[in-house]
């Protein structure tokens, strides 16, 4: 072979390999996924095996509640977005686990089901009408339940919520003050908005003003169409009428509402875009997440029963974990107007906080852990 042809062959080989490499990066064939990653989107949850009927749970006769009266009395209505195809595969498991701890549980769907507690809000199905569904759900809650409940909590049918901790967090706030909480994101409005996936909760006054003042006004709120990102749209509507976007973290700056699974947050496996959106920068390791965390997302039905077992049944004997009550204020005290705090007659019930909030001192922690 002449020198010229061998050179041409070598060049050809190099070029063809680069072409091949380029082709593989085009994702024509999906990459091998040896271990399944944590679900980061709803598509990741599709096709998973689901228990065909809700599992029996048992209660504990020797369980005593040490919750303060003020916390127990907080009434929360939970409205959970679901679809007719998910009634029997997801909604029933919500009802069998955490949903039954709501004071009222309504599934927002496009098909009525009185046994489950699902209603047809009349906007159809699909991701394009989620904003429409949200408006319809809030309108429904306003029409029927405004006076009966203090707080209105939105969740998906793949959210797991610890209702006792939600009441614990909310008990220090006044439901007659317009404020809402959730996993706070920072774009689109001055105050930011609450991520739909992480769940959010509106005070009674916030719901009232949303329906009466914001929704009818085209300048304040996109009331006429059903399309749009439901969480960002709601955020804009609430921000435009001055509803306060609260800080849902605990006094150590650890989050309580999470748009991903516990593992995703514990190990910092969140997607890059999340770090651009998140309002308060999250900490690492177990410091990401509060001991009084409220909600996690992309929780499939298997994980729901696991969480039920790990949180409400299995526990180390002799370890009595007590959260300080009332709940101390979160670090962003600027975001808490004085009027938002609940005032109860008589001393003893006040919103506890330190002037300079308890930041987690990493150096001190390392020392403490080493000393232990």
């Amino acid at each position: 072979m002449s020198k010229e042809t061998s050179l041409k062959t070598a060049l050809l080989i190099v070029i063809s390999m680069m072409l091949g490499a380029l082709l593989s990066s085009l994702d024509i064939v999906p990459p091998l996924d040896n271990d399944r990653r944590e679900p980061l989107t709803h598509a990741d949850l599709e096709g998973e095996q689901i228990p065909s009927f809700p599992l029996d749970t048992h209660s504990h006769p020797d369980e005593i509640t040490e919750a303060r009266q003020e916390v127990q009395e907080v009434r929360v209505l939970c409205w959970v977005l679901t679809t007719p195809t998910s009634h029997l595969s997801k909604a029933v498991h919500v009802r069998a686990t955490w949903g039954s701890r709501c004071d009222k549980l309504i599934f927002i769907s496009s098909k009525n089901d009185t046994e489950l507690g699902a209603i047809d809000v009349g906007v159809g199905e699909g991701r394009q009408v989620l904003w429409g569904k949200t408006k319809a759900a809030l309108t429904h809650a306003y029409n029927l339940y405004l006076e009966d409940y203090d707080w209105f909590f939105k969740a998906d049918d793949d959210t797991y919520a610890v209702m006792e901790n939600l009441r614990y967090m909310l008990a220090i706030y006044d439901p007659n003050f317009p404020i809402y909480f959730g996993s706070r994101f920072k774009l689109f409005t001055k105050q930011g908005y609450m991520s739909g996936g992480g769940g959010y909760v509106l005070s009674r006054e916030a719901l009232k003003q949303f329906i009466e003042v914001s929704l009818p006004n085209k300048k304040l709120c996109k009331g006429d169409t059903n399309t749009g990102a439901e969480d960002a749209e709601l955020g804009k509507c609430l921000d435009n009428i001055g509803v306060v976007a609260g800080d849902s973290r605990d006094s150590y700056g650890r989050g309580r509402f999470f748009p991903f699974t516990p593992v995703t947050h514990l190990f910092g496996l969140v997607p890059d875009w999340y770090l651009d959106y998140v309002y308060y920068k999250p900490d690492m390791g177990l410091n990401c997440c509060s001991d009084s965390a409220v909600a996690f997302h992309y929780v499939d039905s298997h994980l729901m029963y696991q969480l039920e077992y790990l949180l409400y049944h299995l526990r180390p004997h002799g370890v009595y974990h007590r959260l300080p009550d009332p709940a101390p204020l979160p670090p962003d005290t600027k975001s808490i107007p004085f009027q938002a705090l609940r005032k109860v007659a008589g001393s003893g019930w006040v919103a506890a906080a330190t002037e300079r909030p308890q930041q987690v001192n990493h150096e001190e922690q390392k020392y403490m852990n080493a000393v232990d």
Partner: protein
Amino acid sequence: MRLCHRVTMGISRSFILTLGTGMFCGFFSFYLLNSTVTVHPRYIEGISPPQSIDNHAHSHDEMENAAGPLGDVAMHSSHEVHHAGEAVEADILKDKVRVLCWIMTNPSNHEKKARHIKATWARRCNKLIFISSEEDKELGAVALKVGEGRDHLWEKTKAAFIYIYNNHYNDADWFLKADDDTYVIVENLRYMLSSYDASHPIWFGCRFKKYVRQGYMSGAFLNQMAPITRFIDKFVPILHAQQEYMSGGAGYVLSREALKKFVEEAIPNPKKCRQDHAGAEDVEIGKCMQNVGVHAGDSRDSLGRGRFFPFVPEHHLVPGHIGPKNWYWDWIYYPSKVGLECCSDTAVSFHYVPPNKMYELEYFLYHLRPYGINHLDPFPPPLPPDTKSIPQEVIEKYKKVTASTKPLSPTPLEDIQHLGQEKQGGTEQQQSDKIYTNLEKKEKSELV
């Protein structure tokens, strides 16, 4: 026409062949590269993707690549206000029921797995030893002169117990063996053991039964015929070659007397205990224990729910994970349910737990809690259903104790509240009142 002709002349067969081969090689090498290098957005540098909850293991081969985070995982300080004073009851039990934990590991797992065990559950043992073939003072790993690999596990087990008997016999009342993929809730282990006397030869774990070689019939064959053989066993005991033992992976715990009998009587005696290095370590120790008269205890709670588990919680909780043909149903000694009835509220151990899941379990069991619920476990713990397996003295003692005392309740809040407040320099109430009045003043001044 001529251009076309010239082009086709240029594209010879070897040209196409080279092009094709090159593209093929390039495509697949980069494809594999992309698949193995999982491109996760890394918030913390160097963290490997966790084993997804759905993709949990059923064998040690599947656990081979499970590795935990490369750095240290930040934990909550125990001095935090909601953790202070929480373990008063548990600490009392820690002094009364002393547990030595030894973890079976090997040098390649010191960094990958053993370290995470030490950072999570094993620090709650009274004494912790990692049994390996290479020393590691920082970890606490002891080097024993044994071979590595799955066919030397029995040799390692014997060597480990001998080492512990020689060096730590008086350091504990109970001696727990666990793998480096076992997660143990040590407080619940103490709770279960508190009824028993360590000077009695007894051991606990996830009780299994399986067929062993009987004449010409191999154990495996008999196991495969399990539904038939068990039926025949009821009438004709000739097939009764069932070996009872405790699952090695789920962990098992020996009383001090059981340890003594095992090391002094069983190990040296070829008639009682297998002498070479091979054999399934859990089956072999089961035989030795049976041969020297160590009782196999019932580790379930009084409602018949298990406490030691050979899989992760989800496996037992959710139907469909353990298929109907799975070996588990034939081997498990006591009837085992699926669903929330499977597992005790005072469960002790789970197996095939990858390192990342250990931190998850830490978070769910020791940190995240629903506010205001305090579940009181009755004390002394009610006895399990299989009364035949409980020493008579234990039954008598339980009857006597429950007749007279009232059940234990957690330390009243007022008695321990100061433990959290001392660190803060003042009561929560005083501080909160101060803030409230400050905010009030601020508002009033703004109104003026």
